């Protein structure tokens, strides 16, 4: 890893016109974390989805427009919550540092 990753996975070939995408990368001291879990909580804090990060620390959700919280769990790390707003036709990029 050269540390050049600044956002979520490539959206090449994905039509985001009708999607509200939330994506990003999980970092520990600037390096991607490939064994983290990111869960998407709705505006009431209710679980909506969860994905493991890729080998390059990246994750992506197809959400609905609105306010969301990303909760990141990883080995030997505190739980990190990050607020994010999703909008239709837009890609919300989040970098999570653990």
């Amino acid at each position, binding site marked *: 890893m050269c540390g050049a990753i600044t956002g979520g996975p490539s959206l090449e070939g994905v039509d985001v016109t009708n999607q509200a995408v939330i994506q990003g990368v999980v970092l520990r001291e600037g390096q991607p974390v490939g064994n983290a879990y990111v869960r998407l909580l709705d505006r*009431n804090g209710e679980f909506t989805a969860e994905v493991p990060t890729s080998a390059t620390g990246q994750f992506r*959700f197809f959400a609905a427009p609105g306010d969301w919280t990303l909760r990141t*769990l990883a080995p030997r790390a505190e*739980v990190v919550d990050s607020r994010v707003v999703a909008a239709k036709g837009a890609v919300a990029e989040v970098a999570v540092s653990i």
Partner: protein
Amino acid sequence: MSRDTTLVSADWVEEHLDDPNVVLIEVDEDVEAYDKGHIPGAIKLDWKKDLQDGVRHDFISKDRLEKLLSEKGVSNDHTIVLYGGNNNWFAAYAYWYLKYYGHQNLRLLDGGRKKWELDSRELTDEVPERPAATYRAQEPNEDIRAYRDEVVEAIGVKNLIDVRSPDEYAGRLLAPAHLPQEAAQIGGHIPTAGNVPWSKAANDDGTFKSDAELEQLYTEAGLDRDKDTIAYCRIGERSSHTWFVLSELLGYRNVKNYDGSWSEYGSLRGVPVAVGDEPGEA
């Protein structure tokens, strides 16, 4: 049913890694998860390729299950311990499915793959070789499976529990937010069904909450222990998780999993549908 006979901890699994009577099976929806690393000695079942019929919109038949497990080296005497990603959704589905075909000694690994990973326990990419065995399945146990007609008749009569996220329940989403937006033709839920998302039964690390917490959760949600219960979600995997909690951990009577779930119900003609956050009228 109780935790002692249905659930094992990660510590227990570590202590039984070399136990010849125990077969660890990882069941995933993400087909690459096992290949990236799995618990030493575990074999893999692909929820879709191995367990779904492929032609009919249904899981594999008794004959195909017997062939599958025989080839994988699993026999009737083995204690099968299931675990997987997605907070054990698909492992719980496999547990329910194997119980449907009468396997006796079944366990779920509490917390599944996530708990194992978060604990930094050992994972390997070595695929075990198991000699073929002879597996004989029992006749299906229809006491734990609900079909669509029974679900329609249960409206306003039985406990109907929708375990999807609130946005799916209300009809604002058709599928979990990390999966493609496909499946049912319309959004919403079965009228009179309460919404108790499966996730309320689990801690962040994927382990189940305590019996006392679980009992309180479903009591407060209005689940009547004196009534029969049908759980459903989108494709029957998350409702297997809740079926496991109600039937195997809490010992509710007559709990069925409606594995057709919303992907079937939300595409039916001639049935009532409710939208929004309220259960709706019968």
